[in-house]
């Protein structure tokens, strides 16, 4: 199994990663790789300047060969203690057996534990057990992992609760009369000992300096915050790592699960990725720009394959590209990351229905 540098983000405050909603009430429970990449680039610019950002990172992605890219990264998924979680591979999973009446419970699952993920992608048989779904039924773990997570049991519900999405009331007071205007805000609160992890594959031809800068940026990002409402303290974290950790993989597979959102390079690649055996979810990637020249501008929307999508074709070279989502009035380019982080899938694992 290939090994990658893995970082863990321990959140010191709630997290708000915007999702489609009426206002600010909704938040994702993981950080998509394009959000992480955008935040890293923004801080890279603050620490080392615009030229260094282009020289070290962006130009390699936009102008260089795919194998010259300085790094590839996964989205940041939850972990608790020593159990990592992964997105549930999408589509029909023939090696997973379901008891009658468990279809809805299986459908609710968003994340699976490392053990479950490995078994599924390797194509080994596994039985879905409703009683091993925790955190309100959105996380499926094995019995042995469930025992390792037992210290997060909530006394009142008896469920294992690792994180919760809370809708918090917020108030703005008039400066003269103290009249109040109330609004609501969604944030993810994580239990102690849990957080988000991501893996990164550095291209060693870029030297040690790249890794050193990336880590400096990541630590500074921890004190700046990631996601929304950073001023009110959201998204602050401490960084642990890197540790060398393995990810499952089936070499020379003809389909893969992606651990990062993917934006195909062109129509040919799109057709290849959505070929036989693919099962995917499309997610709109939109939001705001933060830079000294372009505050409060909405970036152009782009659709990407979500993490967990099963895409057709070989894992390597990596599918996808960076996409420029610069609004017309913005004086500079705005790049979103859409390169796949593939995990090869056994022929017996998933297939589209």
């Amino acid at each position: 199994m290939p090994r990658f540098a893995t970082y863990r983000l321990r959140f010191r405050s709630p997290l708000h990663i915007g999702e489609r909603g009426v206002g600010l009430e909704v938040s994702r429970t993981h950080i998509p790789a394009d959000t992480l990449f955008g935040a890293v680039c923004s801080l890279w610019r603050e620490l080392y300047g615009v030229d260094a950002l282009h020289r070290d990172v962006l130009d390699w992605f936009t102008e260089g060969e795919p194998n010259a890219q300085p790094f590839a990264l996964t989205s940041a998924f939850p972990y608790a203690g020593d159990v990592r979680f992964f997105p549930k591979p999408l589509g029909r999973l023939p090696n997973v057996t379901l008891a009658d009446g468990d279809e809805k419970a299986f459908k609710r699952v968003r994340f699976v534990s490392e053990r479950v993920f490995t078994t599924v992608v390797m194509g080994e048989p596994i039985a879905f057990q409703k009683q091993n779904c925790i955190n309100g039924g959105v996380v499926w773990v094995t019995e042995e992992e469930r025992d390792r997570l037992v210290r997060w049991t909530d006394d009142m519900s008896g469920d294992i609760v690792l994180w919760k999405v809370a809708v918090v009331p917020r108030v703005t007071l008039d400066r003269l009369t103290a009249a109040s205007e109330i609004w609501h805000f969604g944030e993810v609160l994580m239990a102690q000992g849990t957080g988000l992890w991501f893996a990164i594959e550095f291209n060693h031809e870029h030297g040690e300096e790249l890794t050193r800068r990336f880590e400096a940026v990541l630590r500074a990002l921890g004190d700046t915050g990631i996601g929304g409402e950073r001023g009110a303290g959201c998204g602050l974290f401490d960084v642990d790592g890197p540790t060398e950790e393995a990810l499952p993989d089936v070499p020379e597979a003809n389909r893969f699960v992606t651990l990062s959102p993917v934006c195909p390079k062109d129509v040919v690649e799109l057709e290849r990725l959505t070929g036989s055996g693919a099962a995917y979810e499309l997610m709109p990637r939109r939001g705001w720009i933060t830079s000294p020249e372009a505050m409060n501008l909405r970036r152009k929307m782009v659709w990407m394959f979500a993490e967990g999508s099963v895409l057709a074709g070989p894992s390597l070279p990596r599918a996808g590209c960076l996409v420029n989502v610069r609004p017309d009035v913005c004086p500079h380019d705005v790049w979103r990351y859409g390169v796949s982080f593939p995990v090869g899938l056994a022929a017996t694992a998933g297939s589209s229905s």
Partner: protein
Amino acid sequence: MPTLTLRGKVIITGEIEAVTGLHIGGAAAGLDIGGIDNPIIRHPVTREPYIPGSSLRGKMRSLLDHHLGKEANHFIQRREPVVRLHVCEDEAAYTRCPVCQIFGVTPGERRGWKNLKPARLIVRDVHLARDHEATERLRQAKTDLPFTEVKWEAAIDRITAAAVPRQNERVPAGAVFAPFELVYGLYDLNGTGCDRDLDWLRYVFKAMELLEDDYLGGYGSRGAGKIRFRQIKVEFKSRRYYEGEVALETLAERIDDVRQLPVSEYITRLQQLIREG
């Protein structure tokens, strides 16, 4: 293209003591019979009360608005009740305004502004101090609700003395929340240095001082919400710190009175550290 360089971050940490009962309103979970009228905000995972960073930051901004006599020119809500606050509307005023520079400006027509910087101040949520004797005392006290008291208040008819009671939930006096954390970014725009950012750091301490003499949360005019900053620590993280080359610089430690902080000394020291890179 303009350049923006992060010179470092000043981190102010410590404890917050509730000197009187503290009520920061939350949303009632439902209409329970015998339930409380005005509940406080609680952490959804641990169910412990906490001080949201937004409450602390909002109050600091509001007090600085008043302290510096800023015009309440920006409408959050135009219908009744009108809600306004101060936000600079032209760039010349913004470049001189510590409030808008420290706390940021809200979205609007700021597109052509040349000197816009990110908001400097980040304020974290503050949770009940883990393993602190005050929290332990509160745990043992068997209060009406976990960690909180229920305080009855009443409005009395001026003629008949008929009472209209209400219940407010409060964190009792003596509770300690820690660690509080304020992060203040120092930015250099277009190579002009960050002397002004450094100079405005004193307004962060000023806002803390003003807050101690005001109140946090609700029912402040009736005694609730007096807080005190304790065990204040001021640290500086430079770019070289993030690169792992130098250690964390501690400028002050274990200071129990915000008025005792020799801010000018830190500013001089910070200038020196920034010059050294």
